[in-house]
């Protein structure tokens, strides 16, 4: 099937025309809207006149002997359904609000809205953006606490409860629902490009927005506390262009495939990472030095997500990474 896709992409890649002029199209759309408004206003006046004439000709319209409507015994005919997301005051909806830089005052306002129980100020001298996680200021005796600055879509109680019931789902739609709850941004129509789950530990996921301009780096954990972890870099929504592609080399293995202890006091390792590398890499095999286990991750257009617990205690934490193309040919081997 790949050859068909490749041929179609080759055919489509030879677009000989200039890009569509977006501002000109907008101007055309404005003209069309003005024209429609004029027409509908004229039509409306004519319609009102016709109705008024017809009503004046009908008998008994002015009599006052109508029975009042019965109230109190029945439920209203229409029942409002609670939307999945409601707007956050002062923040645009959806993708437009995600990963947007804020002042300290605006970040404080949004954190107070989301975590009203936390009265401490945010730590100054930081960078604040919607959907990013920032620390509160800490004085002696204070517990470390963070705020995941909300986007423009506040999830309903039903969505929050669903995410709590199933915090690490395997299905992409449920994963996106949970990430939406995490970032207060409706991500349900975003496209998952890569995901990897270490059961009972973390699901790492990358999804791209409908416009293709932004991506979310989301980490789902078994016991979510209403914040994305860790603070600072990592989970959040970013512009696709800003990230660029990571070169697949030893530096990549060293810096973008991290590891930590698999559990407290034991020698096992947990490996994780997310990002985007060369587009011709379809699969990466992670082989920890000293371990008998390997783990494969699939890439889509270079996007990768890794979340793997290696149960072999002999792994040193260093890794050998082998990149394969879509036909299974080895492209490159790198080491941390």
């Amino acid at each position, binding site marked *: 099937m790949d050859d068909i896709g490749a041929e*179609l992409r080759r055919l*489509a890649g030879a677009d000989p025309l200039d890009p*569509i002029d977006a501002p000109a*199209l907008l101007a055309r759309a404005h003209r*069309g*809207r003005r024209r429609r408004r004029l027409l509908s206003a004229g039509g409306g006046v004519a319609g009102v006149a016709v109705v008024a004439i017809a009503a004046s000709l009908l008998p008994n319209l002015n009599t006052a002997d109508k029975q009042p409507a019965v109230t109190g015994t029945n439920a209203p005919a229409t029942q409002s359904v609670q939307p999945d997301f409601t707007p956050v005051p002062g923040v645009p909806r959806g993708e*437009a609000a995600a990963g947007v830089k804020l002042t300290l005052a605006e970040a404080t306002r949004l954190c107070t809205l989301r975590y009203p129980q936390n009265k401490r100020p945010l730590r100054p001298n930081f960078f604040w953006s919607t959907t990013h996680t920032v620390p509160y200021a800490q004085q002696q005796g204070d517990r470390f606490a963070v705020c995941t600055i909300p986007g423009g879509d506040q999830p309903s109680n039903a969505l929050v409860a669903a995410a709590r019931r199933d915090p690490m789902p395997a299905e992409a739609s449920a994963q996106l629902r949970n990430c939406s709850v995490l970032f207060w941004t409706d991500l349900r*129509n975003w496209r998952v490009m890569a995901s990897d789950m270490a059961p009972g530990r973390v699901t790492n996921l990358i999804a791209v927005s409908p416009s*293709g301009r932004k991506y979310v780096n989301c980490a789902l954990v078994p016991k979510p506390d209403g914040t994305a972890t860790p603070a600072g870099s990592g989970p959040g929504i970013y512009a696709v262009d800003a990230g660029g592609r990571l070169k697949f080399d030893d530096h990549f293995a060293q810096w973008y495939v991290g590891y930590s202890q698999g559990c407290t006091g034991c020698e096992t390792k947990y490996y994780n990472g997310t990002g985007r590398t060369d587009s011709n890499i379809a699969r990466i095999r992670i082989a920890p030095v000293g371990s008998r286990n390997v783990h494969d991750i699939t890439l889509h257009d270079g996007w990768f997500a890794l979340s793997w617990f290696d149960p072999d205690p002999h792994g040193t934490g260093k890794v050998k990474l082998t990149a394969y193309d879509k036909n299974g040919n080895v492209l490159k081997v790198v080491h941390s």
Partner: protein
Amino acid sequence: MVDRDREYVEFVAAASGALRRTAFLVCGDWHRADDVVQDALYKLYRSWSKVDRGGNPLAYARRVVVNAALDSGRRPWRREVPIADLPADRALPGDHADEHAKRDEVLTALGALAPRQRACVVLRYYEDLSVEQTAQILGCSEGTVKSQVARGLETLRIAIDRARQTDRAL
């Protein structure tokens, strides 16, 4: 510029190229594809706030474009036959036309498919959409998508193999 307009312009700038490529594969003509996409994006502006709130303007625009591209072939004034392109068998080995000939062979095969069959193949193998998503866009059952894709693929594969054999022979 108000937010709605800014978002619309950003969307058009980001998505129009991809939409035009999809429309071209469905209708087989770049200029017609360009018309179809511009018309679809123009109409999209009317319902932009509703579509944008829905969260997936690209999916909505894709549906409109694909159906408009399918429809464009049915309009009488679109039934002209292009005569400017040389047929594939005129291409001579050694000149730049041989690549064009290969492209033409696949393009011709694509054009030989029934319009909805072609749209199924394009959505499944160019846009990488699922059977379910393809069925939603085309307003048909998933079984129809599967059978149309299977037939379309067979035809295309024969054309591609033939093009490759011609390549090797040259």
